[in-house]
């Protein structure tokens, strides 16, 4: 694919937009891509990233990436017109088809907002009823906040109180009345997803979370990215990355 945009949105985050010469396959929110990192000898394996947005008319997909190590730092330097090898779409997305009825709550924490934004757009397009809850350490971690506000109802929490409710997403008042939602879709740091999952479990609410384990292959052959489930160790790349919390041994 060809890089058609690389936009730094803060010190830690950037958005990479890539164009395929072929028509895009059908992509579901929650699916991911495996990107080859060129030009850094300390990076050997591909890096998996959630698909953040896609445009079937322009044949483009984009990634919202947090700079955490050598791989993401190298990708942040990509320039327009550079060619990157991307294997996509991989894994299973959120069960967005079940969102047609009732009301859904979409929860994104930090860079976990990347697939949640894509899901929010898809649910909007399908005229589903839903709210979004974003969480971050500080206001600059509330990625896509202003974009989301333009088309859906968004709540937020920050740990430092710089925007919305102070604390974690589970401290937000809408979580106290969680039973008004029929289901939760969540992506964020593991402790956040565990806390949200517990809340959903306690209230008998359908809840899907998107996991982020270290991967080598990305398509189910190396068996490195496993997570313990009721059915033994299963691959996050091919059996997930989206799992129903009832499947997970959390």
């Amino acid at each position, binding site marked *: 694919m060809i890089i058609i945009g690389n936009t730094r949105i803060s010190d830690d985050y950037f958005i990479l937009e890539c164009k395929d010469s072929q028509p895009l396959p059908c992509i579901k929110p929650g699916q991911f891509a495996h990107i*080859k990192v060129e030009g850094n*000898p*300390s*990076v*050997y*394996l*591909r890096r998996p990233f959630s698909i953040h947005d896609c445009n079937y008319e322009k044949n483009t997909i984009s990634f919202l990436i947090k700079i955490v190590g050598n791989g993401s730092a190298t990708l942040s330097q990509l320039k327009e017109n550079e060619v990157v*090898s991307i*294997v996509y779409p991989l894994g299973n997305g959120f069960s967005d088809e079940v969102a047609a009825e009732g009301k859904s709550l979409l929860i994104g924490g930090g860079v976990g907002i990347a697939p949640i934004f894509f899901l929010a757009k898809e649910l909007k397009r399908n005229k589903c009823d839903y709210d979004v809850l974003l969480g971050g350490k500080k206001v600059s971690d509330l990625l896509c906040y202003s974009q989301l506000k333009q088309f859906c109802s968004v709540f937020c929490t920050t740990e430092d109180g710089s925007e919305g409710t102070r604390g974690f997403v589970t401290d937000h008042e809408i979580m106290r009345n969680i039973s008004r939602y029929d289901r939760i879709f969540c992506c964020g740091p593991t402790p956040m997803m565990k806390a949200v999952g517990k809340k959903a479990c306690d209230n008998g609410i359908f809840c899907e979370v998107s996991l982020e*384990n*270290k*991967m*080598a*292959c*990305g*398509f*189910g*052959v*190396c*068996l*490195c*990215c*496993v*997570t*313990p489930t009721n059915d*033994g*160790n299963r691959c996050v790349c091919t059996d997930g990355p989206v799992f129903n919390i009832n499947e997970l041994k959390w």
Partner: protein
Amino acid sequence: MTNLEVNIHGLTLKNPIMTASGTFGNGYEYSDFFDVSCLGGIILKATTAEKRDGNPYPRMAETANGMINAVGLQNKGVDFFETDIYPKVKYFNTNVIANVAGSSIESYVEVARRMNRFEHIAAIELNISCPNVKQGGMSFGTKPESAREITSAVREVYDKTLIVKLTPNVTSVVDIAEAVIEGGADAVSLVNTFMGMAIDVETRKPVISTITGGVSGPAIKPMALRMVWQVAKAVKVPVIGIGGISTAEDVVEFLLAGATAVEIGTANFINPRATVDALEGLRKYMADHKINDVKELIGGLL
């Protein structure tokens, strides 16, 4: 017309490029990327007698030009192989080779006996070199006596081509190769992964749950090549080269060192078409160097 065909003790490979066990699933996972039947052989993920859940996550660490894994032979056991895997892999139009592992001589023999019955399993590769299991695996492959003993026990129940996969974590890989050949091996494949480890300097903890794991990828290629060269000089049976092979040039190096065929492993994770790309590159190399028969390259080191 270039001839890419090679022979491993009666087993005809349409070309010398195969896949390394554990890096290619059961083959069909790669069918989205290319027609896997174009390869000389597909070596399946290891099968054990009983289901194994493998080691806890994290099982993998990236290293300079390679990776460490400690998957621990996760697989659903030989019964599942018979009911769910074999019916799919038997349709590949190439050699399908089972990788057999276990925790005791009896469990290796049990799996080998079962594999012997499957018409479309062309050969087995005996895994006495996995560094990531507490019992069995590499412990059989580090001493000539136990390597010979387990090979001859499997030889008694297995009629087709028997390949034994060797560990590099020994003082003399030639001694182990000679021992398994005495035990009845038709060919040897080498090398499995090198034992290694990685430490997270922030937490001061090992990166992988089992502390140590097996290093693979281009980082190990020079050592693997040296071992293949040593073994190929010393033994009369075919040698299959493994270890960091990623490109056609790597394939040619291993053939020149004396390998009759090769297995491409970790490279499949980074480039799912690594095997077929190497095959196309090998054809081009032969054309460029006016080589009509790939067998001219085997042991062709000057």
